[in-house]
């Protein structure tokens, strides 16, 4: 049994060594830079000028301007109810912030092959949207960080307007055109996940507006 005692001692030493060897590193706080912190959508009224088969958009001095700021949960301020005017055109700009408050919307433009925004919720014939993004070579691209939204008709009641910026699966963007800007079947047809899903009450009103 001497042998057994010797072996047992060796094993005990090994166990003790292993036990003291185990020591996790202190956890390091990991800044989740993946997270998109906050976002805002800004409407600035512009003049739409027909130019052959397309439009030019000109700034209006003193035109209406409105910014809706969404919090980290993608929610607008409580009670947000936005009026846009029939016949008017608005430059709609997205600003997205990362966890540290830095602007990141340029990332969506840099990777325009996998990003596209969809504007949803309006009844047919009420809104028209035109993508107005440019890539680094100044070529036109359809992303939706910048675009022009025209109110064609007013509605009796408001509706929930939804701005969805889609992070598309590889190869999907090739099958999407500018005409799909309000495709309600975007989730089924254009596979991917949403980087942003921003909602607020929108009410297109007659030119002179109305009071609630």
């Amino acid at each position, binding site marked *: 049994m001497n042998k057994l005692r010797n072996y047992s001692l060796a094993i005990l030493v090994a166990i003790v060594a292993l036990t003291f060897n185990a020591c996790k590193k202190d956890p390091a706080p990991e800044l989740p830079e993946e997270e998109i912190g906050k976002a805002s959508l800004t409407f600035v009224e512009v003049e739409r000028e027909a130019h052959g088969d397309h439009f030019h958009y000109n700034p209006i001095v003193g035109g209406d301007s409105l910014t809706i700021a969404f919090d980290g949960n993608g929610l607008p301020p409580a009670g947000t109810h936005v009026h846009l005017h029939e016949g008017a055109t608005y430059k709609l700009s997205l600003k997205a912030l990362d966890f540290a408050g830095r602007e990141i919307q340029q990332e969506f433009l840099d990777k325009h092959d996998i990003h596209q925004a969809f504007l949803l919720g309006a009844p047919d014939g009420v809104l028209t949207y035109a993508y107005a993004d440019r890539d680094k070579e100044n070529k036109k691209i359809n992303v939706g960080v910048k675009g022009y939204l025209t109110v064609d008709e007013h509605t009796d009641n408001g509706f929930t307007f939804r701005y969805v910026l889609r992070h598309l699966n590889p190869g999907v963007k090739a099958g999407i055109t500018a005409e799909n800007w309000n495709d309600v079947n975007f989730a089924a047809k254009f*596979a991917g996940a949403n980087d942003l899903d921003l909602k607020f009450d929108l009410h297109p009103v007659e030119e002179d507006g109305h009071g609630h």
Partner: protein
Amino acid sequence: MLCCCGIILSAQEQPDTIKLQEVGIKGKRSLVGHTSISTTLHQRQLETTRGSALGEVLKSIAGVSVLKTGATIAKPVIHGLHSNRILILNNGVRLEGQAWGAEHAPEIDPMIAERMQLIKGAESVRYGAEAIGGLVMVIPPDLPVEPGIGGSIHTIGSSNGRSFSTSAMLNGALRSLPGFSWRVQGSYKKAGNIKTADYYLGNTGLREFNYSAALGYISAKAGYEVYYSQFSTNLGILYSAHAGTLEDIAARIAAGRPVENYDFTYAVTAPRQRILHHLAKVKAHYDLSDHQSMEVIYGFQRNHRREFDFRRGDREALPITDLVLNTHTLNLELKQQRDSNFNIAYGFNSVVQVNNNVPGTLANTFIPNYDSFTGGLFLVQKWTGKLWELEAGLRYDFKLFDAAGYRYQYNSSDTSGGITEEYYGGQRQFHNVTGSLGAHYKLSAGWQLASNLALAWRAPTANELFSNGLHHGAGLYEVGDPNLKSEQGYKWINSIKYLSGQLSIELDAYAQYIDNYIYTRPGLSYRQAVGGTYPIFRYQQTNASFMGIDFSAVYRVLAFLSYRINAAAVRAKDLNADQYLPYIPSDRIDQSLRLDFNFRALSESYLQLGHGYVARQTRYEPGSDYTEPPPAYHLFSLMAGSTYQTGRQQLGINAGVDNLFNKGYREYMNRYRYYTHDIGRNISLRLVYKF
């Protein structure tokens, strides 16, 4: 495993006697006793599935099914239980990876196995925690005893995924150094996009490169073995499973198949998993006396899991999860044969683990860093009679789990708009006493009865305790519970076997009660995020029951014609809520008709037509899943093979077609069944050369 006994025979001093120096007796015995209800896959059976993942290899055993995540990830399921509820022994060392994830496949190369043994009982007493559902042993070939060099080369090609695998093994024993032997082995696999019956599945390729080396020495009273293996894989995750919110998932289900079309490619891009698993093992066996032996096995494993996802900006090159798990295991077992009918074994097992998140992922950590220590003492006694065998075991385990991490607080932000992080974790201690009772009885020449009653346990895993984040691809948000208790499973399994020249039958019936069964269910609340709304699933505990039968039989209709059937059914319920548990395999039957023949110099030739039927899972809770379980399906297969032997050299060929009629189907146990169909027709050719 090493069943080589050095016996010194001192012959009596008589004129015509010859003095023998040393006689090596080599044989293969089961690693477990008769009281354990087990099934073994031998080399010949393994040859027909070479190149497949471990889960796919094991599913030819009645009672084993596979939990799949798409086409590239497969986990074995024993009697409805998987992941941390089954234990895998890789060459005698318990496999320790990040097994908690349903999409984390075992980090093991099945090509190394000469045998695989599956124990269906809850045998925690000898092997430690987590063997609640059962135990899988992956057993490499024994190191050779006779001097010389031998080996084997396997080459496998498959049409679906245009995959190519090769494996080579070389072993030998040294004449100049008696007692020393060695083995080296390596395998490589390359596969591209898998095709369903009608379309390719984008990003379902993989690369795998594995190798191992072993060195052994045996003397009359001792045996030593040093072993090292590395498993590495880079596997793609189906693009089409990339879904965010429930809206996305519902749209994908409504479409019935991916709307995006992909072609064949070998390229693997994000989302993908890159896993590297090292195992080093030292084993020593001593015969302390004629009736007493001791075995010590020390193992070290390093598991490095990196998962890459679709990410913002250029972050796809950075892993979103980067975990390193180091595990030390030490097993000590002392065996004594008190008399010819009575054996006793007692021992000690310890597991020391250190899990760390590698900084730099720029993403929230899903599980914390942790240290864990588990120590267990066991005693197993066995009584053997002429017709019967009885075994009883008792074990005590202690586990210390100490976790610490930081995580992003989704629901609060500081006034500057930045994020706030919270420290989480804590120390938990678990004590458990487990036991087992087994009996085996030979009723007659052909009939055998076995019964095994065992209690097994497992402590909650890090994700069950602490997860708090989005489960990518599942469209849900998982929240752990740091106060979860240990799970305890009581499993009673009975087996009746009949074996004659013409017919063999095995019927296993089991009932299992799991106390504090850990599972997730919808918490009826949602997390609102900037990208949408996600349902919250919380880890909870209940009491659960699992009951079922496994049946297998082979009937030799004629000398050259045989019929084989495997069937399994399992019923599982959440007893507290009186509801069915999700992801329980539906009833299934596999049957085949096999023609065995010899043709000129070819031996072991066969032609086999197979049919598999998987029923629809009708036992589910409506509203608890995104969609109803898929319909039942039938699959057919055809397989043929032969062997050519000349001297010590042997050339074998196996050719097969799975899903012969290229049927489009969905399997309930595939987590991506919501988005895609399962794999279409696959033609495989397997060549083996042994020398």
